[in-house]
């Protein structure tokens, strides 16, 4: 029997667990030692419609920030900053709760087509 | 003491046989002997006939099965006298009975010829000394006298220590119990 590896998930708090790691290398008991590391997992590709910020209309009330289920509205210094498109799933709640219609929802297909068209023009 | 000495208690639930078996064991353990004390557990509540057991030895006791052939039988309630009391007891067995009857009368009831029979009125003794009918403590005094297993003075000292531990705040209870044991030791009659 190979000697038991005392270090697995133990002496060293293995942080980044990769799919190719063997049983001695991954963390003990399924513990996760990096709080909030789900933000390295992207859910942006779930989206079929995309929120787009209309800067001119925005009054920075942050109702959209309050109601985003995915913490995907980034507020900086108490003001709307940007969308976190890596995680936004395109549920459309933010656009609905916005009292001044400063968020528009566009189909991702449409956005892609527009981008494509723009590239073709250039 | 070469072999393990085995004791069986016959009583009714609530008379304190379990407590007595455990207290007896504790006091004997104090003298460096090895002991076991355990009751038979059933669904019985107050009033039902119950059994409790002791094993006493100079060496560590391995056996954990029930006591089947006790050399000593203690009966806390004379209404229990019958075949169950004599069951499995060897011919030279010792019976210690709480009763107002004489040893001869008990012998007749038990229908035995051999063995030794001791009687003591533990109910009256406990009533006089403790103020309530709790025959278990006086019977320990009778046990010491009947078995001659342990020196009386030493037993009393241990008992006093045990009782002091249990009834720290009730000196009158300690006093009463010790008195009860002492009287039973003196009053027990054998044949």
């Amino acid at each position, binding site marked *: 029997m190979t000697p*038991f590896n005392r270090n697995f998930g133990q002496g060293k708090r293995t942080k980044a667990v990769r799919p190719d*790691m063997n*049983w001695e290398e*991954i963390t003990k008991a399924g513990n*996760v030692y990096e709080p909030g590391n789900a933000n390295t997992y992207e859910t942006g590709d779930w989206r079929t419609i995309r929120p787009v910020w209309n800067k001119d209309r925005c009054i920075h009330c942050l109702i959209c920030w309050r109601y985003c289920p995915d913490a995907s509205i980034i507020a900086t210094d108490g003001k709307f900053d940007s969308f976190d498109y890596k995680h936004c799933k395109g549920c459309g709640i933010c656009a609905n709760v916005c009292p001044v219609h400063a968020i528009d929802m566009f189909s991702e297909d449409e956005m892609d087509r527009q981008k494509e068209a723009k590239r073709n023009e250039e | 003491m070469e072999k393990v000495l085995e004791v069986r208690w016959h009583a009714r639930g609530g008379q304190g046989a379990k407590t007595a078996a455990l207290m007896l064991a504790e006091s004997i353990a104090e003298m460096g002997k090895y002991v076991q004390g*355990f009751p038979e557990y059933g669904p019985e509540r107050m009033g039902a006939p119950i059994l409790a057991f002791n094993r006493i030895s100079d060496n560590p006791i391995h056996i954990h*099965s029930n006591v089947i052939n006790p050399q000593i039988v203690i009966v806390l309630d004379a209404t229990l006298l019958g075949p169950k009391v004599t069951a499995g007891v060897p011919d030279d067995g010792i019976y210690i009975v709480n009763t107002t009857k004489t040893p001869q009368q008990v012998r007749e009831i038990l229908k035995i010829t051999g063995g030794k029979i001791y009687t003591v009125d533990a109910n009256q003794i406990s009533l006089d000394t403790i103020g309530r009918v709790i025959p278990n403590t006086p019977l320990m005094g009778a046990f010491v006298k009947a078995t001659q297993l342990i020196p009386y003075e030493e037993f009393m000292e241990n008992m006093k220590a045990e009782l002091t531990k249990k009834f720290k705040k009730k000196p009158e209870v300690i006093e009463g119990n010790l008195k009860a044991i002492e009287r039973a030791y003196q009053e027990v009659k054998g044949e």
Partner: protein
Amino acid sequence: MKNKVAITGNEAVAQAMKQINPDVVAAYPITPQTEVVQIFSSFVSNGQVDTEFVTVESEHSAMSATIGASAAGARAMTATSSQGLALMFEMVYIASSLRLPIVFPVVNRALSGPINIHCDHSDAMGIKDAGVIQLFCENAQEAYDNMIQAVRIAEHPDVLLPVSVNLDGFITSHALDVLEVLDDETVKNFVGTYQPEEYLLDAENPVTMGTLDLYDFYFEHKRQQVAAMEAAKKVIEEVGREYEAISGRKYGLIDAYKLDDADMAVVVLNSAAGSAKGVVDELREKGLKVGVLKPRVFRPFPFEAIQDALKGVKAVAVLDRAETFSTLGGPMFADVRTALYDLKNDIKVVNYVYGLGGRDLRLEDVEKVYDDLANIIKTGRADKFVNYLGLRE
């Protein structure tokens, strides 16, 4: 300093818990474990321990709260019996898979139904595959000693698993026995302070425990648990040696009684091993080469030690105080027979199921087993693998 006392098995367990002084105890009363909880709660109410005592509403919650406390960084314990263990069954698996060093006495009692309050090992056998270390105790002394060692075994960095300490309901738990207890300071030094590597109340290093673990990693985590169980064998022996140094009492994986030159052996757990030893002493006087093997550790299963201890015998009887209803006898029989299968000697191994629901194991019963073994050796045949001892048939 050693101190000889006459106390019951439950008192011995409670006494050990008091000296261990755990941070949290969460427990629910059940016959025959109740006294442990009762006695311990008096230690709490008299300020004799630093423990936060959580009087949960069920055994499921007892183990759940103990898991929460242990994960939070506390030295945490619970205690149970029978139906209580069955109710916490789900959480026992979770405690071991979360790798929490929870110590919990199990006062063995038959499982319903029909309901029965007396001793057998069907409760403990129900969790034999739950990833929990299981120590078994012949008497109150071993219950006390095993409780104290269990803390060190559970918390060892190579192990980090729950440890259950099994003692026979009523037979050991309620019987007054003479044993030696250590003084508080010695126990305190022996168990030390629990220092978890990661815990919920570490404000600087928050941790997520109890994740959803699918086919991509679950298997690897199970393999880690096996490794911890493997490592536990060595740790149990190490801790046993250290404990011997403070107590003078030897503890290993198994207790081999007069087996060195034995032809016949009985393998049996807990208090019945004591009775078997008594019979062996008598039979030895008659010149019979008989012995007893008492596994102190049932999980991890000490098969190497068992092979070694039984390699010279000709016939073995495994006494199980539990049924599997598999028609292949009791749970320990399967394990012992498997362990002996690879030995070249043709050792005959038979099974006796005994003592279910608290049926007394009489000395004659054990004598009969040795008689049977002698007969098997004489004829070279074992006609029946699975037998019932003390059953009306």
